[in-house]
């Protein structure tokens, strides 16, 4: 009998070539930088050389020196310390936005994609509504009218990011749904929730993770934009966007005052973007359903 089923001899079957690609140098640098930023966000006030809020009216508008690496601003505050502490508002808000949008957007997207029908329709109309409006403009209008504030901006941006995530995940789920492996477990009799969570979602994961990183970078930039316009972080807060705006007029005197925070902002956004792109490539290669 065993002859008839032609049993498979393992020696004859395919080996799997797992490409052990080492971490590229660039990615390692990105990870280090990001870790640094996160560290500053948590422990900033301990690490900063000067008190970021301490005003020294005798030493205003100083040029960069060893004591004040970025110089001082119009109120004599050390800009370098403010940049370090500013990491907090730069990380906290976008993190909440990215994770919140991921959780809610994912749930909505998986639901809409797998269930289809009415739920899908309703969720998609809701998303269409959101798509019609550029996030920043809505934020400006709403936040401005309601009186500004950091966490208000964060909440609003999160709500505005959800539809993008939802649509992305829905697309991925729709791509997986007709695949035979999903249909096979349906026929086996697995419950829809089991299928959504246990079967489909793990295959959608690379997209989710990468997208969350990109969302973080985007939120960081948008949030800073709001602060730049005076609508996000309150006046006096050590926030990168705010600082760039405050110190804009100092370009002729001490350009580092504005360019310092600007550079750090761009660097953070870039590293997170790079990490997101790299993660996507890496995770997609692990043989996820294509």
């Amino acid at each position: 009998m065993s002859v008839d089923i032609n049993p498979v001899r393992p020696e004859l079957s395919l080996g799997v070539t797992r490409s052990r690609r080492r971490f590229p140098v660039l990615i390692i640098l990105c990870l280090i930088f990001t870790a640094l930023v996160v560290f500053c966000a948590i422990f900033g006030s301990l690490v900063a050389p000067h008190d970021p809020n301490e005003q020294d009216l005798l030493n205003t508008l100083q040029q960069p020196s060893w004591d004040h690496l970025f110089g001082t601003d119009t109120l004599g505050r050390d800009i370098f310390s403010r940049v370090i502490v500013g990491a907090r508002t730069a990380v906290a808000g976008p993190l909440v936005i990215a994770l919140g949008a991921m959780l809610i957007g994912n749930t909505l997207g998986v639901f809409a994609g797998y269930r289809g029908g009415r739920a899908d329709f309703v969720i998609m109309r809701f998303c269409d509504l959101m798509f019609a409006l550029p996030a920043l403009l809505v934020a400006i209008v709403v936040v401005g009218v309601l009186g500004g504030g950091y966490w208000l901006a964060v909440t609003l941006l999160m709500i505005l990011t959800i539809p993008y995530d939802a649509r992305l995940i829905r697309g991925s789920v729709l791509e997986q749904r007709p695949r035979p492996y999903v249909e096979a477990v349906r026929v086996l009799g697995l419950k829809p929730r089991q299928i959504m969570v246990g079967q489909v979602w793990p295959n959608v994961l690379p997209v989710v993770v990468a997208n969350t990183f990109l969302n973080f970078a985007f939120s960081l930039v948008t949030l800073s934009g709001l602060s730049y316009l005076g609508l996000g972080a309150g006046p006096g807060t050590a926030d990168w966007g705010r600082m760039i705006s405050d110190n804009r007029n100092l370009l002729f005197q001490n350009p580092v005052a504005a360019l310092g925070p600007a550079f750090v902002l761009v660097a953070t956004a870039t590293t997170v973007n790079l990490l997101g792109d790299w993660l996507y490539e890496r995770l997609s290669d692990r043989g996820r359903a294509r």
Partner: protein
Amino acid sequence: MLLLLVISFGIFSLLYLAPGDIVQSLLGARQSSPELIAQLRSQYHLDDPFLTQYWIWLQNALHGDLGHSTVTGLPVTQAIKDHAGVTVFLGLYAFVITTFFGVSLGVAAAVRKRSAADRGIVGFSVIAVSMPAFVTGIVLLYLLAVRVSWFPAFGPGEGFQDRLVHLTLPAVALALTQAALVLKLTRASMIEALDQDYVAFARARGLATWRVLWTYAFRNALIPVVTASALILAYLLTGAVLVEVTFALPGLGSLLVDSVNQKDVTTVQGLALVVAATVMLANLLTDVLYMFLDPRIRLGTGAS
């Protein structure tokens, strides 16, 4: 259309959500007095039910009357008209730069995939994507207006020539991020198109390279890029605000920010409505263009 209605409703409701008394908001900076309050109440129909107020407002808007600014007292439509010129100029200028550089570099990168040029372009685009318009603006200001005086640091300029010069820096600042996005999209789309069987078949038949690139790859790759262009417009509008503030340009963006800061609710409402309408229009235009480019949509999908 329905969408626009819903959005306009939302915009109108803002008035009510604003903290503080409605009358106070409408008063703005003026001194209050019973006559003024009474006049405001009747002018803005504050004694009527909410929906009626909304309806009246909407009707007025459709006739081009968006009310009066609570700060300056001038008609909002007037303010919008005055400020629109700069923004439109800026927007178009930026759009041209975005499309030109984004698409051409994207195609170049795709065609020379994995070469040094490609990697350079992609690397540049990653950084560009991470640079918000205001940062780019500041950097450009610094480099090209402060360090060297090639470009003026602020103001929109008079006349076409002068305006072109004045608005170059802001337009580039605005365009940079968008160009990077367009580049990414074009490159990905082009790479995918070049990978297709019909491109290989065209080459197997000995067709000239340029024709293969153009008719076979590019025109097919364009379709997803065009669909995304409505999104590009939305981002351009967003960036315009930041850029105008940075460069002190009296455009719609500055108007918006000022109005918001001054709690000039009617102006904000009016502007928001105009923006929403513009975005809708852009979406519509994109759909039409998409239909034009892809015969499958035009004729309805045929055989599977």
